[in-house]
Each structure stands twice: as C-alpha cells, then as structure tokens.
C-alpha cells in the first residue's frame, strides 16, 4: 500500500483516515547535505525536497539542534515552515507544556563537530540524546516511537542499553541505515528461510562512517536466513595486504567477491588492487556457522553490493543496493517511508535488533583493529531476532513517487 496516498476520494479520507502524526526532530546539526537535511527536509519540502512534491504524511512540529554551525540551515527552515526550535529536548517533545505533545521522535545524530576516539570512532552523542528523550518520557509518563538514524552508538554497551530501555519502557524503536531499504538492482531480496552458508558485502569509505552501512547491507540480507538471527560469535578486522591475502587464500570469499562486485555501477578503471590503497575487511563469524566478509574498498567502488551462497543453489543471491549520488538523495525517501510506517502503526517496520547487532559488530571490528587485528570472541553479541517474510526496500526503479515498498 503506497504511503502518503490513497485510492479513495476525499469523503472517505475524512471519515476513515486518522489525522497526521506530529513528529519532533532531535538533531546534532542541520546544515546542507547533512542527514538532518535529507531526512527532515523530506518532511518539510516533500520527497523531492522541492517544496512542491508530496511527502510523508506526518508533520514536523518541533526541532532541537545540539550544535549550530556557521552553515546552519535549521533557523531558516524553522522560519520558512513555521516549525519552532526549542532550547531543550524537554520543550521539543512537550511543545512548552507538561505533557508529551508529539507522536514520534526522529533522533538524527549524524554530522556535527564531535571528536574521534583512538578506535577511529566518531563520538556522536546518540546515547546521550536518547537518554534525554527517554528522560522526558519518564518525566511525563508517556512514550512515543523513536527512530535513531544510523548506528545506535559507536559503543556496544551504549547501543545495548538503548534497546534495553526501549523494551523496559515499552515503546517502538527503529534504527539504522538507508542502504537496506533503498532500491536494488536487481530488485530482489534474500529468500526468506533459506540456509545461508557464506556471505560477502562490498562498499567503500571510512571504517566507522561507512563500515556501518556495509554491515547493515549484509545484515538485512542474512537476517532472513533459516533459523533467524542468533548472533555473532567472533569478529576480526584486517587491513592492507592482509585483505588481499585473505581473498587469495579463501576461495568462497573470492568467488562471492567477484559475484558481488560485478553488480557495481561505479567500479574504477584499472586494477582494483592498484586503485584501492587501504583496503579493509570485517570477518564476521555468526553463531549458526554462517561466515561473512565485508570489504571497504575506497578508490575501487562507490556503491554497495552483496553476494550470498545459499544451500542447494549453484548461484548465490546477489545485488546492488543503490544510493542516489546527489539531491534529493532518494534512498532517504525510502528510509523515511519505512519510518512513517512505524509512526502510523505504532510497530517497528523492522527490528531494532538488526542495528543493535551491526552496531556491536562494528564496535568489536574496530576493537579488533585497535588490538592489532586480533580475532575477538564476542559472546556479548548473542542478539537473537526474527524478521517477517515481507521485504521493506523500495520497489522498482527510483522514479516512482511516492516511494513504494517492495
């Protein structure tokens, strides 16, 4: 069913369709091309962010920005669209009253001036902002669904605590990347309930910033396997020559690597190993025996591809998860469509445990690197969850508006 549209006429609209939800945006920064721009901007200016196109049904009613850089655009957008900016999260969620006055919260803790730690992790204050949001829930005695953009935290301990709090307080929570829900070429999903044996994912850019997207591209596929997700038992990071050595010495990885990268639309000319100066790979051993290798190949590709071996099939399932390289960053429309489903229904569209597991896997992968590329046993990562059969990525070519789920 297409979000934001109905086949019925106006009188049915009035009778059967509940009023739009009110949403608060709690952000680190809101400046051009930030995640706030490409997410909140869709609420304010439509799927095409042109001020004319239809957009999500929910209404943005308040904003909070932790930082206000020189190129801030929140103040301008606030004025233009008559959405107040509050000095505290408490006020943003209660709109100056003593009660919860919103039906949903967008927590966008990406971008902004934050330090890096010695594990190459950017210390975005997502946990801290989440604690403030949930403290408001405690204070007013009411909760609302929360979407957290990207990984829950750079820290496994903090990520786990966020999910535990959402369970304790009983509110729907979603998180994660736009990559799992964007358009695919081909437009296929991992066959639900099939036994996965080996998996490869390929992407590019920074270990933390894009390593997260990479792991989510992998996880959104393998979580559909037989037995459901039961967690990860070991993680190891390799870099540079060790990456090529791993590929050369691991036939399944080499075969799936070639299959995945064949879908890339952005592969650089020439020899991959020459182009990619600092390759990295995250080796992920799952509790049920599945083995995965997720590669970051900056200089080699600029997109997301996956290939997974399935028991009983000679051909792996493989695809490209497509991101629009420019405005209006279509993949964020796909993400917003999925967030809206939660705001409307009160049920998470896909489990937050996906992002709990990928956040934890990433933290341990960077810990492995920090400890000299040691293979780390990860009993903590016994994250178990099931996903329904229904897929959630954007169907068809990326020019259907509004975006439609597969």
């Amino acid at each position, binding site marked *: 069913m297409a979000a934001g549209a109905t086949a019925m006429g106006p009188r049915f609209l009035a009778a059967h369709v509940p009023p739009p939800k009110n949403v608060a945006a709690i952000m680190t920064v809101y400046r051009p091309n930030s995640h706030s721009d490409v997410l909140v901007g869709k609420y304010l200016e439509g799927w095409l962010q042109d001020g004319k196109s239809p957009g999500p049904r929910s209404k943005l009613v308040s904003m909070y920005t*932790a*930082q*206000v850089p020189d190129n801030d655009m929140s103040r301008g957008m606030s004025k233009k669209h008559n959405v107040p900016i509050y*000095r*505290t999260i*408490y*006020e943003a969620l209660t709109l100056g009253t003593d009660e919860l006055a919103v039906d949903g919260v967008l927590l966008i803790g990406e971008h902004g*001036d934050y*330090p890096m*730690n*010695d594990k190459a992790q950017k*210390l975005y*204050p997502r*946990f*801290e902002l989440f*604690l*403030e949001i949930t*403290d408001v829930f405690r*204070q007013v005695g009411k909760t609302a669904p929360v979407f957290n953009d990207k990984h829950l935290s750079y*820290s496994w*301990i*903090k990520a786990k*605590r966020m999910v535990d*709090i959402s369970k304790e307080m009983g509110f729907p929570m979603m998180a994660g990347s736009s990559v799992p829900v964007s358009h695919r070429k081909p437009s296929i999903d991992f066959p639900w309930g099939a036994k996965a044996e080996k998996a490869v994912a390929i992407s590019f850019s920074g270990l933390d910033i894009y390593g997260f997207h990479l792991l989510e591209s992998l996880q959104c596929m393998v979580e559909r396997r037989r037995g459901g997700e039961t967690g990860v038992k070991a993680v190891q990071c390799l870099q540079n020559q060790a990456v090529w050595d791993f590929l050369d010495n691991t036939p399944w990885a080499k075969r799936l690597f070639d299959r995945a990268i064949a879908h890339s639309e952005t592969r650089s000319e020439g020899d991959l190993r020459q182009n990619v100066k600092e390759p990295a790979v995250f080796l992920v051993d799952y509790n049920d025996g599945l083995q995965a290798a997720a590669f970051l190949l900056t200089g080699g590709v600029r997109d997301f591809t996956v290939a997974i071996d399935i028991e009983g099939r000679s051909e792996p399932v493989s695809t490209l998860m497509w991101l629009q390289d420019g405005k209006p960053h279509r993949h964020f429309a796909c993400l917003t469509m999925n967030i809206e489903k939660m705001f409307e229904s009160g049920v998470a569209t896909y489990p937050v445990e996906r992002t709990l597991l990928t956040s934890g896997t990433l933290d341990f992968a960077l810990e492995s690197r920090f400890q000299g590329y040691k293979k780390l046993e990860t009993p903590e990562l016994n994250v178990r969850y099931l996903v329904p059969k229904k897929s959630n990525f954007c169907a068809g070519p990326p020019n259907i508006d509004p975006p439609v789920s597969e």
Partner: protein
Amino acid sequence: MAGPPSAPKKIAAIVTEYRNNSHADVVVGKYLDGYRQNGRAPKPRSKIVSLYTAQVPKNDMSRAKAKEHNVTIYRTIWEALTLGTNKLAVDGVLLIGEHGNYPLNDKGQKLYPRFELFLEIADAFRRTNQSVPMFSDKHLSYSWIRAKRMVEISRELDFPFMAGSSVPVTHRSPDWDLEWDTPLDKAGAVAYGGKEAYAYHMMEGMQSVVERRRDGESGVAWTECLENEAVWNYLDRTPWAKKIFDACLTVSKTRKPGQARELVKEPTAYLFGYRDGLEAATFMMNGLVNDFNVGVLPKGASEAKPVLMWLENGKPYGHFACLVQMIEKMYESGEPTYPVERTLLVSGMLDFALESRFQGYRRLQTAELDVKYEASRESHYCKGDPVWA
C-alpha cells in the same frame, strides 16, 4: 564513641576534559597528589578509582596521571561506575563538567554537557538499582529546565547530591559569615570575569551568604540585566546599591586605583528581586577588580558589611582544596554538606539573567524560581587565613 575508621571511599571521576589547570586537574589532582598537589600530605581520604573523559584534547593529562596513580580510564560511564562488573562498585561520583571544547549558544552560555553526563550516571544507578552520593562542579546546567530536572532525579533515585562553586567555601577576608537568621534587606556583589562563567561564581558567593537570612530561602521573583551606561545610571540612582558596591571595593585585594567608570569599559549588572522582598545587585567589573566580593545591608543597618571570598591566583588554586574538603564530608557522611538547592537557584538566576540580556534587558518575572530551602546554622567555608595568604 567513634568506632574504627571505615575504609577510604572509592570515587569515580567523570570529567569533560583533564588538562593542565582544568577543573579536573585542580579537583581530581588534589585527590591524586594532595591538597597542595605536590605529592605530599595532607590528602583527601577518598581514593579515585576510575576516570572517564568525554574529550581527550592534545594537551590531555588524564592518560599520564592515570598511569602514574594506577587509576583505570574507562570508555563508558557505565564501566567507570561498575569497574567492569554489573554492580555499582564505587562509593561516590565526582562530575566535573567544566572546560573542554563545547559551543556557545546565542545567550552566551557554554553548552557544557553536565545534564547529559548526569543522565548517564543516573542511568547507571537505575540499571544497578543502587545509588551513591554525587558532586557536580559549578552550576548544574546553563539551562534552568535541565538543572531542575537533575535535582528532581536525585530525589526520585534518592541519592545525596551536591553541587556548586569553590567561591562560597573558600577562605574569607574578613573571616566572616552572616549571622544565621539575620533579617536582610539588600545584598550585592562586585566581581570580574566572563558574563556567564564568572558571573555564576559571584552569584553563588552571594547566595551562600543571603540564604542564611531570616525565614530561609524562598526563591527569586524577578531578574534584570543591565549593561554599559545603564549600569552607572543604576548605581547613581540607587543609593543602597552604591553603598554595597563601595563597601565591596574596600575588602577587594585587587582594586585598581582610579575611577570605576574609567577603568571598566563594559560593566554588567544582574539585579534580582527575591520573593521575600530582599533585593540584590551584582556587578561584573572587569578592569576594576580581579576577585569576588560580596556585601549585605541588614535591615536597619546604615553600613554595608562586605567580605572577600579569597581565591589563590595560581597553582594549586588552593580554594579547590576547600571545595574538596566539603565534598569529602558528603562522601564520608552520606549527607550533602550544604543543600543542592543553593546551586539550583543560582543556576536558574543566571539562566534568566542571561535571558533578560538576550531579550534586550527586559525585566523578567521568574515564577519558576520558587526554590525553597533552609541553610544550616553552621557555616561551610575554610576558616582563618589561607596557606597562600
């Protein structure tokens, strides 16, 4: 009769940054290196057992200090409080959210994440279902709303909570406190420094005196900020404020010779009307003085009584030793040495005073600031002359 002394308390230090001359340095450093930070006695009894630093600047000293003193630095506040277990493993928490690279908002407030760090500490209390005394350095938050919530949470989770500046608790010159239960009419202060960071110290210094007045503290009804010419005009037309102002200058140890009007290019005044009728006028006078002076005019008195709150002007900033002594009393006894409501009220006074300035120096009614508390009869500051006198 006292029993055998208990083991020293184990303290977790949660700080924004720890570099030379930061608050973390001059507070935590006294635990590690003694009250004079020279490696020798006397030292506070409690032991720092864990450290968390939100930021690690180029001139960080936490890593070296931790190694030197065998203190573990943890990546999360949870781990710093549980020492890697599932239970609270410390007897007290020191929250030092001063200094570090944080933005200024449009009200001139530095957005130190004290509330955020407090929430993380409180979350560890919630998770373990245990709590321990906490001290939070300086104002609770730049935001009244956040400051109020911190105190509410401390009541909900039922843990001893203390906060504030070193100024009210350092040595005084003369060695004087307001007699408890004195009827007080007017009060004021003359100090220096940044409009927010040091104005806070000045206000809390004054509050620690006026809170002792008859009928106790019941809060502030209005506030107004003045700047530049408006400050001199106010002084000219308000004899009681001028009286207190002049009295303060007589105890200052750094008063520059000359006319205030010529020495001070950008004076600021923060005026307060307390709910019980007490009026206060506080002045930031950069160029005239370099210290903190408080003055009061008891009801019926013709002369104002001034007092200097005496800070050491270089390492090891001995006034922090006085603060640490006050904190130690809480860790040992389990009771705050003085009410956290003092700092709650002053945090609110400062937030609204800066709001007045932001709104074009409007007088603001502050019904929110109905903070009621009673100070103890006993004074809480370092008696006698300081070692740096």
